[in-house]
């Protein structure tokens, strides 16, 4: 019975190859669209294209991390990014809420304890359900799925390789590269690769990471260090220079200031030189303190590298087809229509140069690309005024320009900055420190006073900023904001009440009613 089955499969394989060869010889490509990469951008593009009745296929493959971690369909966001991050951030917030609860009358035995394995199992289960959900969606939308690693043979041909080494050739009229990125390892540091982990591994750990050192000043580093502190682990962040490069620096320093008060240790202006393993699996890290000029060491259970992400282009064989990449970052260079240097080859998401590394922008770009290719649309993706949030213990949400960028663009005389230090009502009874709860709005000074950027630090920053992003997209002005009535009592209403300028020099602390 099994032999008959195998013979049947072999026959079908031969038949498939014969059909593809015939099609190739006749000049017809097998698929209208082939997407390499089953992440946020790739899946959105593929599903949108399939809506137009096109023949679409997706290739997705996860190369295991150096520690051996691997995951299913869905890309970085679903498996090792936004989703598990936000869930673990929530776990940490709940810990704080339990501490606050006493003040509100709840009888909860202090101190509260957290079990990593229970949280990790629940998060991992949810992620796996999302992997399955994506698989079902592809099936429903009639998108063919290959669990293979793709590389270019020519501009219309991709060679797909399964884990077992089986090869499949796929041809397509249009190809979209959406392979994203992977965390970098600092290869110049001895022991970095052998003993350190990255965000790829953190969310899939079965056991608690214990006393952790997170190296890096990116939002990945701060968000991870934030929730690790929140669930009760001894956590240290090591930063070479400034935190959250690219973000408004005043807001970035408020974020790190809060984290320090919250319990995260910071090693500022330090960089690691080596990592060694001790008995009992502990790791000894040696680093240089550039301020003091000293060398220091300490022991940790886990060292996590959050020193940047590298585009996943190495195995694509882009040279074979001439797709140009940036010499500085290695990312694929695209124009406003996501086209690469080769006709009919496009790229979207984290792999592209000069674009935000965000899920919603990748999804939007993917959908618009599909509509332009197959739906007679000419709408391009607008990358301006993209809102985002850093999910540190005290969240930071923003949309538009930072103060530095606005001043650089328009000059400090033409920019007005409104700001306020506020206290969330919920913090009062809980006796929580609100020193870093701050809002800043950057506007043009001339007649209309258009809002250039909005920055908010406080609880639920993401929820707060989302609505205001619409206003800014529509070109909202300061007078229009002043006419907007706030909802009371909320933190968001403080934005509608901004009236103290930085220029005035007045104390920006505002009180509630």
């Amino acid at each position, binding site marked *: 019975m099994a032999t008959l089955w195998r013979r049947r499969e072999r026959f079908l394989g031969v038949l498939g190859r014969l059909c593809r060869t015939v099609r190739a010889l006749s000049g017809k490509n097998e698929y209208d669209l082939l997407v390499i990469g089953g992440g946020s951008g790739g899946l959105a593009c593929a599903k949108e294209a399939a809506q137009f009745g096109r023949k679409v296929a997706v290739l997705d493959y996860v190369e295991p991390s150096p520690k051996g971690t691997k995951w*299913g369909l869905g890309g970085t966001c679903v498996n090792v990014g936004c989703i598990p991050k936000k869930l673990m951030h929530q776990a940490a917030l709940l810990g704080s809420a339990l501490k606050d609860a006493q003040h509100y009358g709840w009888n909860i035995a202090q101190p509260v304890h957290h079990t990593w394995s229970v949280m990790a199992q629940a998060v991992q289960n949810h992620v*796996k359900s999302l992997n*399955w959900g994506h*698989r079902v969606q592809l099936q429903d939308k009639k998108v063919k799925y290959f669990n293979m690693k793709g590389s270019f043979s020519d501009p219309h041909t991709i060679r797909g390789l399964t884990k077992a080494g089986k090869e499949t050739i796929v041809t397509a009229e249009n190809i979209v590269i959406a392979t994203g990125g992977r965390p970098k390892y600092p290869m110049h540091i001895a022991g970095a690769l052998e003993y350190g982990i990255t965000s790829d591994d953190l969310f899939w750990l079965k056991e608690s990471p214990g006393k952790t050192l997170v190296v890096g000043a990116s939002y990945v580093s701060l968000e991870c260090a934030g929730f690790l502190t929140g669930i009760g682990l001894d956590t240290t962040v090591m930063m070479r220079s400034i935190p959250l490069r690219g973000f408004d620096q005043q807001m970035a320093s408020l974020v790190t200031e809060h984290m320090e008060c919250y319990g995260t240790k910071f090693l500022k202006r330090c960089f690691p030189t080596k990592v060694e393993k001790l008995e009992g699996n502990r790791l000894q890290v040696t680093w240089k303190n550039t301020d003091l000029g000293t060398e220091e060491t300490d022991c940790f259970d886990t060292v996590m590298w959050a020193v940047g992400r590298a585009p996943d282009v190495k195995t694509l064989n882009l040279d074979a087809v001439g797709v140009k990449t940036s010499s500085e970052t290695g990312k694929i260079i695209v124009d406003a229509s996501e086209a690469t240097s080769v006709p009919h080859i496009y790229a979207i998401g984290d792999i592209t140069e000069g674009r935000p590394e965000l899920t919603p922008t990748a999804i939007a770009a993917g959908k618009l690309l599909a509509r332009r290719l197959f739906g007679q649309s000419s709408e391009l993706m607008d990358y301006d005024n993209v809102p985002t949030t850093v999910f540190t213990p005290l969240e930071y949400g923003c949309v538009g320009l930072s103060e530095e960028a606005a001043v650089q663009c328009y000059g400090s005389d033409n920019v007005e900055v409104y700001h306020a230090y506020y206290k969330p009502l919920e913090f009062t009874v809980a006796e929580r420190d609100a020193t870093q709860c701050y809002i800043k709005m950057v506007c043009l000074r001339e007649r209309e006073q258009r809002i250039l950027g909005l920055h908010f630090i406080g609880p639920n920053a993401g929820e707060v900023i989302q609505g205001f992003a619409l206003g800014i997209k529509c070109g909202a002005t300061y007078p229009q904001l002043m006419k907007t009535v706030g909802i009371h009592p909320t933190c968001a209403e403080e934005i509608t009440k901004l009236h103290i300028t930085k220029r005035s020099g007045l104390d920006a602390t505002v009180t509630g009613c």
Partner: protein
Amino acid sequence: MQCPIYVYPGYLLAWGLPRRGGLEPGTAAVGLAVGCPHPTYLILLSPQMAQRLALRQLLSLAPRTLPPQAPVARHSRAFSTSANCKSTFNVQDGSDFQDRVVNNPKPVVVDFHAQWCGPCKILGPRLEKMVAKQEGKVLMAKVDIDDHTDLAIEYEVSAVPTVLAMKNGDVVDKFVGIKDEDQLEAFLKKLIGA
């Protein structure tokens, strides 16, 4: 497979096994122990035997065999007096599914489940128990959708748990989500009877 669970008679009482009516201390029996979702094998102990065993385990000594008159269950395959282990099986691959489900002369219920699915952990054992009650008239095949994604996709499984009733290779009935024992009984009886 789980290790044998040693329980006081009191625990078994909680699950409805009669104290009177022939269960001597030292007898092996099948039942559901507290906190255990699957039927497992147990050894009924007298309080003195249980105390001795607990003390031994506390002192980290290898548990000695019980007094000669008590049969001792080993840490291996499920020791079961019911047809449980024969009426339920895990599907190994596509050809296994063809052989044991599609080409099976008996009707088969196929339980598509996943490790990450909470409701599946409730439905699975419940369905197994009801299938076992049918005394071999129907079999149960378990398919983990992450291990056998192609199979699950082929049978259009979207949410889990999804249970298909198969007869002579055709899907004759199906349901999605948890059902109680009475509903499962009716589902199985319909499959056998039809």
